């Protein structure tokens, strides 16, 4: 499985996802700049966190116009895995690959800390290695992470088991239904505010995110 890590101007967790896949998981991974016009040969796409285009206008709003996004949308439509964390989640909603939107945190403040999550759906290609309803801890670091969608959309997300992660104790940002991460209806596009790539090495104190990448890579092996 060959994986692309998209680098937008202002992305800053690109290194973290790259290292998690390359160094920790020994996966085949490459950086792809935002001006690239082809993702030919790639089997999966990672959209990293950060502040693409400075988060000016709205977080993720401008990145969706970058040339590479046409290709990201093509891969998503083909059913290939597309994963976005933090700003990557915001970009995926702005690009229409995931429903809803991410609002400013209710506290109006950026918040960086580790929070407990519930793995709500362990049947996705990203979460197969977690137990059903397992409690895990992952870091969050965002100012615009309050998930919002209208009631009909929320009902559909719940009915289709598209809610993959939920904040398990306190809700750190005001997300509706305590949503921390969702997939599209087909299940191949996952967006989440928490950072699994920050929790893959014991020396940094947390390995709860590792199985997300392992799940994806195992899926890739089975497919290939």
């Amino acid at each position, binding site marked *: 499985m060959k994986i692309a890590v998209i680098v937008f101007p202002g992305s800053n967790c690109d290194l973290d996802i790259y290292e998690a896949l390359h160094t920790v998981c020994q996966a085949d991974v490459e950086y792809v700049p935002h001006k690239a016009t082809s993702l030919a040969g790639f089997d999966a796409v990672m959209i990293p966190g950060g502040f693409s285009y400075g988060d000016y206008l709205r977080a993720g709003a401008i990145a969706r116009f970058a040339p590479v996004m046409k290709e990201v949308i093509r891969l998503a439509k083909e059913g290939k895995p597309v994963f976005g964390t933090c700003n990557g989640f915001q970009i995926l909603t702005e690009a229409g690959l995931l429903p809803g939107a991410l609002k400013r945190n*209710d506290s109006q403040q950026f918040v960086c800390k580790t929070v407990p999550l519930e793995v709500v759906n362990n049947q996705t290609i990203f979460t197969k290695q977690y137990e059903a309803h397992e409690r895990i801890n992952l870091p969050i670091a965002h100012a615009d992470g309050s998930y*919002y969608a209208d009631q009909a959309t929320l009902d559909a997300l719940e009915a289709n088991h598209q809610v993959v992660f939920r904040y398990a104790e306190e809700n750190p940002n005001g997300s509706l239904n305590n949503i921390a991460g969702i997939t599209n209806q087909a299940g191949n596009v996952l967006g989440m505010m928490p950072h699994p790539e920050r929790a893959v090495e014991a020396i940094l104190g947390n390995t709860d995110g590792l199985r997300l990448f392992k799940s994806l890579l195992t899926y890739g092996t089975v497919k290939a």
Partner: protein
Amino acid sequence: MQVRIFVTYKQSVFDPQGETIKDAIHTLGHQEVEAVKVGKFFDVTFAPGTKDVEAAVKEIADQLLVNFNMETYTYQVMEDAE
């Protein structure tokens, strides 16, 4: 020609910043203030003689300035600057 485009949260979307500001106004003593909504505006200047400004405004708002999942907009054609 200048157009001012106002973007706000939809009526149904919780606006915590507006609530916080309302609380601050109340501590100033203005209990008569019932609600505050926060939004942003964009002053967009078109070249003189631009045709169909309103269609352009609509497209700019729809495609870029507004996230219709949570936001809505209005606009106002400004008097030409001196």
